[in-house]
């Protein structure tokens, strides 16, 4: 290893050497620049290798042959090596990216870039306070210069914008350096040294004037982190500078400044930590809030950078509490932010226009879309990236120490950030692409791809580190996840090959592992894996390559499989996030699904954060725990854990109040996706509820029985879901609302907390999977053929699409719970369960929901398949083979399940005995006996069959003289209808009912959430007006920041 001094020497020597080269031979100067940066990168990498692999100790480097504090010394340790590597690599990649600009700008520009990187390295290495100041000034000056690299749309030289941004930066930096110098000189006076470690030992705070001296220094250095409100200048720079410089400014400068703050905190000691935390969290929330109404991409990234830096500052401020895991958390967050932000800034340089929606142009290049996804996932802390591990640890430690306010604020800020990032991704995938070609030059795409590779490598590394620290398996080694990710590499294959691979993989995984599940989990495993494979059959109907579909779908299935296989809270949560993200990508594929996918991911992430908080609260300081030990959570925390987890899971089951994402998401999804996200995905939430209820059972909060509350929620969900379904015109939305109602039933069964209730819930799980998948496929097939989902535009399709008709007919019989199909089995168990439970009132509500279901189900069959055939639909054909085939399999399954329900339920019934020994069923031959009666499926089937044939035959005889009415045999009463569809019999079918019960279907909940979102937006929009663009205001902001911290911090 060479001395770390060579990092500085190399850059400076190269910068000075540039002046000696022939100014016209710019290629040569550029080569010198790159070589110097590459050399610096290598030196840092070498050190990092030595620290991590060989485990050497940190090295102090003395200059001038004298010991500190008499001469300046540098230190190279693990943190320094990692940070300088980050800085140098960012500098090198940005220099590559800037090839054209640097060649045009000449050697002086290159020298400025080199010195800027060198100064950042200096900030990280130096242990001398005044030397820190010198390096900071170098950073300020070089940044002010590099801002000017901005190119206008035509690639020309800097506009006045970047010039004014640079000037504003200089204004603020003048204030900052005055404070820094005053602080340093008084600190020197108080301690007699300029050495950071020396000053830390001399306990500066105790000396006279020491506190204020430190305060001044601290404010000055923290100001380089762009804290709220003293950060308007930074945003202007982000908006106007060249993206390659912004990458350095965000990733490298941010990291270096954070490290400087870390060193200062060493001097200040523990009493300054709360102040750092306070500044950090306020910045984190404010910046994220202000980012919400942003439409300019780079300014948005600027806000996000500021927010992320604030979050890392919070971590530094909590280091007393976080202890040894501070570096793991801080670096996890910092490195995720740095890599992702640099990557995003580089990406932004490939696009010509600056509005967020203009990023739709990126769709031309799937690889770059993947890069965007990687970066977004890193920023939002999704698994398997470092931010995820960091978030987990942070939340657990904060919860363990009872820091709930801070915890809540962090999660709130993170949710807002996820909101604008995913909204942006929605724009990217769904908005109309501007007419421009995204250039694919190597020196610009290269850095982006390096960032992507670095992101995944870091994901592996953090998984590995977490394994060492907390004894976990690396997420990136989980077989299901690897299987899903491998589809990224196979995405060039035609869809049918990938489909076959996916089906084979899922079935094979089931066959390999089915012996490992208990009966409860086995049911879910069958639905997730075999059921998933079955719905995938429908995907054969799609031709082409279908880029992006399989990675997303497999990610969702991988998440679900990992969910049921998880035994610890960590694995469970990781799986939960994976399935959420996978399903989000799937849902987003629908044509008009942009807003719905966004609300889906926001509700899901919000729910996930609640689950995270719940787990953290339950863990009580431990890094993770066995799911089974949820039962042992002690009294004061237990009901809160229950509430957090239950609400989290209910976002997925779409309980009333949290349901508004579901109708749009399910209805707008692609034909073969709807059954996946409805029939299968919703079960993940139920599974979570089951795990929770099995472990924690009945909990009381302020004397209220929480399962009782759940009962009410479930009953209302069933009622409102069904009611809403009645008034839908769109067939898929109808089915979606119906799912809400069905989930209400299942939740109700679970909340009953007795044997039959659970059995009923499981019957619902199975039934709902079968018939909802079938109905969505059938309706999807019809919609595909007719080109519409509005039911009143259809009619009379029974002859043209007989198979779909059969599927829908069987489906609605099953859903409505009339004999003889399996739905009746569910109802039968349900009525028995009710008899044995204590709560009557919610049951009445649930009862009412039953007949309402008939109304909408009837409509499905009547308006689509019966009645008059529309003229324009005369040439409609049966749905494609691959969409019909799974439906027919489902029909067969329903019949089998109807005749021999014991096949699955018997084992579950026996299994449930260990939890609810009372009130089980008796299985005698073909008859099932409960405490209140018996049920013989075969007999019922026969009886119903006989009745049906008799009545049908009678009808045929009675109606044999009936006349067919022609389609146009209707009279408008001399009235020309304003909207023709209003005359259709199927339009507003249940108008009378709407009059009677419509008030229940007012979108109160939607309005509530809309208002909330509006409020956040308005708050952000008002708040950001603080940054009025006037350089003097930024000066005011900085001084106000200092004064506010002084008074609020009580210094």
């Amino acid at each position, binding site marked *: 290893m060479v001395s770390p001094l060579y990092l500085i020497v190399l850059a400076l020597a190269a910068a000075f050497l540039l*002046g000696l080269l022939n100014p016209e031979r710019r290629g040569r100067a550029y080569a010198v620049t790159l070589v110097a940066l590459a050399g610096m990168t290598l030196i840092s990498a070498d050190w990092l290798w030595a620290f991590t692999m060989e485990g050497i100790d940190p090295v102090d480097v003395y*200059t*001038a042959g004298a010991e500190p*504090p008499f001469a*300046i010394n540098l230190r190279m340790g693990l943190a320094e090596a990692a940070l300088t590597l980050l800085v140098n690599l960012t500098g090198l990649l940005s220099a590559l990216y800037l090839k054209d600009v640097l060649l045009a700008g000449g050697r002086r520009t290159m*020298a400025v870039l080199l010195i800027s990187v*060198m100064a950042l390295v200096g900030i990280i290495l130096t242990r001398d306070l005044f030397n820190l100041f010198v390096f900071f000034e170098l950073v300020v000056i070089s940044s002010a210069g590099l801002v000017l690299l901005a190119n206008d749309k035509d690639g020309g030289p800097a506009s006045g914008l970047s010039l004014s941004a640079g000037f504003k930066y200089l204004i603020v930096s003048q204030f900052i350096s005055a404070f820094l110098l005053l602080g340093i000189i008084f600190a020197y006076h108080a301690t007699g040294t300029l050495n950071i470690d020396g000053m830390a030992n001399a306990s500066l705070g105790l000396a006279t004037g020491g506190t204020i001296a430190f305060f001044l220094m601290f404010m000055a250095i923290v100001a380089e982190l762009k804290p709220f409100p003293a950060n308007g200048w930074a945003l202007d720079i982000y908006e106007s500078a060249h993206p390659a410089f912004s990458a350095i400014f965000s990733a490298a400068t941010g990291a270096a400044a954070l490290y400087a703050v870390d060193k200062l905190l060493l001097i200040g000691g523990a009493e300054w930590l709360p102040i750092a935390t306070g500044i950090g969290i306020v910045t984190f929330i404010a910046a994220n809030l202000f980012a919400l109404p942003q439409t300019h991409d780079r300014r948005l990234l600027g806000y996000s950078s500021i927010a992320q830096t604030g979050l890392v500052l919070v971590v530094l401020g909590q280091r007393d509490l976080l202890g040894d895991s501070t570096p793991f958390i801080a670096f996890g967050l910092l490195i995720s932010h740095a890599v992702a932000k640099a990557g995003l800034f580089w990406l932004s340089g490939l696009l010509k226009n600056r509005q967020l929606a203009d990023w739709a142009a990126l769709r031309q290049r799937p690889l770059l879309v993947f890069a965007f996804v990687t970066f977004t996932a890193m920023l939002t802390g999704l698994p398997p990236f470092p931010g995820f591990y960091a978030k987990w640890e942070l939340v657990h430690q904060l919860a363990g120490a009872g820091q709930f306010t801070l915890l809540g604020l962090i999660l709130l800020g993170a949710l807002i950030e996820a909101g604008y990032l995913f909204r942006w991704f929605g724009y990217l995938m769904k908005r109309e692409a501007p007419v421009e070609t995204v250039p694919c030059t190597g020196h610009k795409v290269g850095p982006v791809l390096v960032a992507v590779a670095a992101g995944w490598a870091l994901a592996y590394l953090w998984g590995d580190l977490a394994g060492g620290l907390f004894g976990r398996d690396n997420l990136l080694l989980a077989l299901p996840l690897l299987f899903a990710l491998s589809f990224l590499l196979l995405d060039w294959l035609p869809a049918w090959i990938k489909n076959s691979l996916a089906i084979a993989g899922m079935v094979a995984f089931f066959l390999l592992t089915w012996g490992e599940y208990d009966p409860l989990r086995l049911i879910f495993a069958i639905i997730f894996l075999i059921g998933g494979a079955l719905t995938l059959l429908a995907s054969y109907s799609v031709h082409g390559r279908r880029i992006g579909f399989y990675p997303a779908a497999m990610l969702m299935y991988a998440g679900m499989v990992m969910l049921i296989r998880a035994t610890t809270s960590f694995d469970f949560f990781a799986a939960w996030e994976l399935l959420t993200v996978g399903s989000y990508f799937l849902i987003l594929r629908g044509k008009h699904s942009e807003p719905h996918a966004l609300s889906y991911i926001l509700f899901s992430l919000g729910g996930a954060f609640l689950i995270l908080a719940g787990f953290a609260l339950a863990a009580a300081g431990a890094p993770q725990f066995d799911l089974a030990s949820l039962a042992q959570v002690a009294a004061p925390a237990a009901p809160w854990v229950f509430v957090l987890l239950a609400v989290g899971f209910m976002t997925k089951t779409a309980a009333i109040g949290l349901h508004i994402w579901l109708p749009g998401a399910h209805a707008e999804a692609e034909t073969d996706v709807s059954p996946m996200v409805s029939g299968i995905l919703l079960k993940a939430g139920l599974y979570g509820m089951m795990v929770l209820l099995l472990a924690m059972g009945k909990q009381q909060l302020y004397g209220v029985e929480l399962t009782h509350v759940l009962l009410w929620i479930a009953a209302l969900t069933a009622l409102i879901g069904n009611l809403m379904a009645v008034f839908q015109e769109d067939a898929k939305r109808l089915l979606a609302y119906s799912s809400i109602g069905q989930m209400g039933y299942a939740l109700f069964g679970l909340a009953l907390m007795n044997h039959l209730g659970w059995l009923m819930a499981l019957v619902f799980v199975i039934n709902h999977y079968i018939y909802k998948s079938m109905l969505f496929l059938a309706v999807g097939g019809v919609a595909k053929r007719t080109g519409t989902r509005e039911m009143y535009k259809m009619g009379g399709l029974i002859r043209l699409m007989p198979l779909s008709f059969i599927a829908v007919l069987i489906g609605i019989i099953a859903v409505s719970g009339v004999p003889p199909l399996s739905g009746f089995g569910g109802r039968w168990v349900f009525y028995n369960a009710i008899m044995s439970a204590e709560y009557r009132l919610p049951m009445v509500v649930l009862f009412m929901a039953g007949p309402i279901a008939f109304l909408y189900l009837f409509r499905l069959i009547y308006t689509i398949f019966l009645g008059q055939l529309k003229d324009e639909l005369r040439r409609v054909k049966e749905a494609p083979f691959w969409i019909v085939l799974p439906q027919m399999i489902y029909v067969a399954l329903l019949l089998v399940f109807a005749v021999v329900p014991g096949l699955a339920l018997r084992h579950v019934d026996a299994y449930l005995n260990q939890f609810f020994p009372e009130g089980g069923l008796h299985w005698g031959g073909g008859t099932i006996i409960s405490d209140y009666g018996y049920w013989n499926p075969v007999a019922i089937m026969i009886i119903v069959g006989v009745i049906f044939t008799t009545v049908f035959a009678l009808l045929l005889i009675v109606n044999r003289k009936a006349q067919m009415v022609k389609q146009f045999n209707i009279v408008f009463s001399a009235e020309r209808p304003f909207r023709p569809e209003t005359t259709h019999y199927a339009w507003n079918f249940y108008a009378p009912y709407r009059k009677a019960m419509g008030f229940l279907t007012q979108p109160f909940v939607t309005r509530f959430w809309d208002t909330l979102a509006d409020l956040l937006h308005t708050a952000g929009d008002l708040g950001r007006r603080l940054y009025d663009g006037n350089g003097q205001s930024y000066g005011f902001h900085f001084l106000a920041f200092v004064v506010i911290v002084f008074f609020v911090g009580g210094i």
Partner: protein
Amino acid sequence: MIKRFIALTLLLAIGGLFASLLLGYTPDSELNQTARYYAERTSPDIGAANIVTAIIVTYRGLDTLGEVTVLFLSAAIVGLVLALGGKSGKTGRGTVPVGELLTTGTRYLAPLIMLLGVYVFVNGHLTPGGGFQGGAILASGVLLLLLADPLKRFSHVLIATIESFAGLLYVLIGLFGLVLAGGFLDNRFLPTGELGALFSAGAIPLIYSLIGLKVGAEFASMLASLSESETS
């Protein structure tokens, strides 16, 4: 008005901070540990009569290298900024004719000023003064030349060569210290000589001369850039 009021309020608070610093300040009666070390060790270790110079060039040499780099950076960026495109349609308003006195004076004074500059930086380790002061004096000579003849053009290549060459040598000398003596920028790879002699204090005179040249060149470069943008 309200702006002034807010400014006054904020500054009142900041002034309060300053006041408490001022009131809490007690002058030292003895040198603190760092200063004591310098006072005691400079002469035997470094061999420089001017302790401040020893601190600047050797003990805190890294700061000084940074300082030189700041000037280098400023000069480079000033050049970049002024070379920017934009609405530079403005033509010079013509130059006011320069007086006889100034031109003649310049002819005699400029070489003397330059010489003084060289003297100041060469003797930096002995007397108050040094590379920065000397460099600034050199640059004031250049300024005088520019005042006498605003249209005068200096060779940018020459200036760039001087500043880069001096900078590069400075870094190299620092490396000599690292390799041959106790650390980066250690001056003692050359003999420290006798206290008070011109050729003493190891590499300090060399370094300070290079700094002087470099600072002079950088100021000259800024002045040249500014004067060109003014009249072009």
